[in-house]
């Protein structure tokens, strides 16, 4: 198959050049891998040199991250300190220098740890045509979306109320057995709890029964116990080389409990 590579100065132009058989190149960790293994799914690579893609800036009470911002860049950014452990959890240093936030939204389980955090933070996904999608809707439509992601917006700072844990089988790095992000505003009377899990379905998913069980409560042992019992409701983990679906269902509640109670993993 003859490969063509087209580079556009703006994301809008790149978006309008996309067709079936095209792939947009972010950091390259997925697309170039596809080229290396002669993926039959695409023969055209679209790039954009649009500088807006790598912008990080405040937006209202929150922060806007360009889709081309790399994990390494985000780790250094001020105003997004609570996301540093999330970005650090993605790959080794070389991958973090390459992998982008936009790309992380499109990778398959068990990858895509950053998206798990975004899901817990009620992020909005901004498309190249200006459309704003709540991240949950984005994941639901991901396979059929037209257009390109230009940025994600985290509507409010989550300092102090945000918790994140990636469970791996090799130290210090590896693909996820399960990734858990929780946003628990309200202190002793939690309101608007979000618990998102990665590697527990083909996309990051929210544990909605568990969220409801937390509503109005606090992180006492009894509540946490109840929350963990239902945290796998509605999730659909898969077998892969990291763990079996059975194992993931067994250990996800254990790791959620430790995260909520502030215990070591």
């Amino acid at each position, binding site marked *: *198959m003859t*490969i063509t590579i087209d580079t556009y100065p703006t994301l809008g132009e790149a978006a309008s050049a996309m067709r079936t058989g095209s792939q947009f190149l972010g950091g390259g960790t997925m697309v170039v891998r596809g080229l290396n*293994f*002669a993926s*039959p799914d695409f023969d055209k690579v679209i790039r954009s040199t649009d500088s807006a893609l790598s912008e990080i800036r405040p937006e209202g009470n929150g922060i806007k991250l360009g889709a081309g911002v790399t994990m390494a860049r985000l780790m250094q950014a001020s105003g997004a300190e609570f996301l540093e452990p999330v970005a650090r959890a993605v790959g080794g240093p070389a991958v973090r220098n390459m992998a982008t936030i936009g790309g992380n939204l499109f990778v398959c389980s068990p990858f895509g740890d950053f998206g798990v955090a975004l899901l817990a933070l009620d992020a909005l996904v901004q498309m190249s045509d200006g459309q704003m999608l709540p991240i949950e809707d984005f994941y639901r439509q991901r396979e059929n979306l037209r257009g390109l992601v230009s940025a994600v917006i985290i509507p409010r700072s989550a300092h102090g109320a945000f918790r994140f844990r990636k469970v791996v089988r090799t130290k210090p790095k590896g693909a996820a057995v399960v990734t858990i992000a929780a946003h628990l505003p309200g202190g002793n009377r939690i309101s608007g709890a979000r618990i998102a899990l990665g590697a527990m379905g083909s996309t990051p998913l929210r544990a909605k029964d568990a969220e409801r069980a937390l509503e109005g409560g606090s992180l006492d042992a009894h509540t946490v116990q109840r929350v963990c019992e239902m945290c796998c409701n509605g999730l659909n983990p898969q077998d892969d080389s990291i763990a079996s679906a059975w194992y993931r269902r067994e250990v996800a509640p254990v790791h959620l409990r430790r995260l909520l109670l502030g215990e070591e993993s």
Partner: protein
Amino acid sequence: MSSIEFRKDLFADEREDDLNEIGKPTVRQDIVGHVTGRSKFYDDHLFEGLLHMRCVRSPHHHARIRSVDVSAAERMPGVRRVIWPKDVPSNLNTLLSLINFGLDDEQLLSANKVSYMGEPILAIVADTERQARDAVAAVRVDWQELPHVLDVEEALKPGAPVVNEVYPGNTFDYHDLYDHQKLRFGDVETALPEADHVVEGEYQMSPIEQAPVETCGAIAAPEENGRFVCHTSTQALFFSLGTTAKMLDMPSSRLHFIGGTVGGGFGGKVDSHHEPLAVLGAMLTGRPVKYMWDRTEEMRVGAPRGAERWRIRDGVMKDGRIIAREFTGFFDSGAFTRLSSYAIIKGTGHLPGPYTIPNVSSNVYCVYTNRTPATAMRGFGITGVDFAIECHMDKVAEAVGMHPVELRILNAYRDGDVKAHRRFAKNCALIECCQVASQKAGLSLSPEAKNASSTVGGGIGWRAEVPETLTDDMGKIGDRKRQEIPTQPLGGATTKGRVPAGTMGENVVASEVQDTDMQIDPTRIGHSVSQAIVAQPAPRPRQLTLPAAALQAPAQSEGSATQPALSTFAEPAAPTHGQPAPYKPEKPFQRGVKRPGVSRFISGTRR
């Protein structure tokens, strides 16, 4: 390095304290090349006009090939050559045929049928790797799927799919006689009922991929004078050279093989598949050809350490002495033999582990299944069964209420003990390892265990004798197919094929140590013997112990550790003071007797 602690106090009298290298950092002779990136691995040789080879592989566990259509692939840009099974001059081989072990059972490119997922049936050579990949994807194969078997014991059942036509019973043929490798030492069947406890266990190991960072591969190119140069990642250059010469039916003098710089192997780079294909590609195109696995192939097609299943049954006395141990083992060889058959020979030689047990029997099957063929990996043939044995030791300890470390010290082999493979144990150190480990772990041992020594108490009485051994004829090739023989070595066996010792005209008592030069000569192994022992050499009893006595011996020998240590080490003329005489065997070393049907691997040949 820094974590190594030397215990030179142990066996201090057995060696000079003159270790100049051990435990000290040393500079590898090749390391400057490694850190500068100048070391040349096989893929670090550049050739003008290099072509790339990729294989069409089976997507099924077991399937017949009805037809192959390459018409689209052949027309694709950059495609230089499609290589068919018929292009391989001698398309059947087994790796160890070079040392005359086993039957040729595997094709380089499979012509009619595939027996594992990923088996190659066709090779395509193209200008770029991408073009080769695209052409492979364009080949259309009409597969007729066949029933497959992925479990070793399922494969042994009558009516199981035949995985490998060369071995229609789905087992490797040992010594042209049996469908399994046997070990018989003493009489397990009589001993087990005499035991206070019988402890059984089953242990299963999964396949393990060696996963070198450099994937397997080779680059071959035409050289002057009709020769071909081949740069390869092989761990076994002469295996690869010999295999290539055999499969391409050409004198090895036409092959110029260069290897030696290997990016990690761990046993996974001995199978010699890349070299014949790369050289064949170079022969058929007249151009340099690279055949290199990608990471996916390395993990999925590359032969792993095979899965093993072991059943162990121990007869153990109340005091913890193991008087009998019975093994049934199944090595999952995958679809072809490669090295599993030989791994079993090695594993059997290791039984019953580092313990002195007077009655041992074992049946180990090399089983063909529709899984990726298995091959060598670190600890070749030993790692799996050792895992099983040590798990089982813990189970036995629990059964008799002993601490697992105490149980190991009690049963550990000691210098001078005869092992199930009819060799004397020497330079044993398991007891001392257990003692040191216990000390480190803060575990307090009983006085007996604390005072035990590998050099004391071994080689006495029954411990130095090959017991009368009951052999049997069970499991002759084809028996199992006829549903006549169960896979368990003795349990539930019919009497068919049983040959009680001394009742069939021939006394089948096991032979003595085959070569007297195998006995330990203190001067030869640097093993100094205390004067107290050499002063009163104990004649080693030549008469064979009766079975009953052999069975009772373990229970009676409780006090043996306190007896004066009359080691067999004392047997050859004791060294006198002063300079020891240089070693000279009583008679020259000789090759073992080659008996028809007996593999040279288990003969008495001293290697």
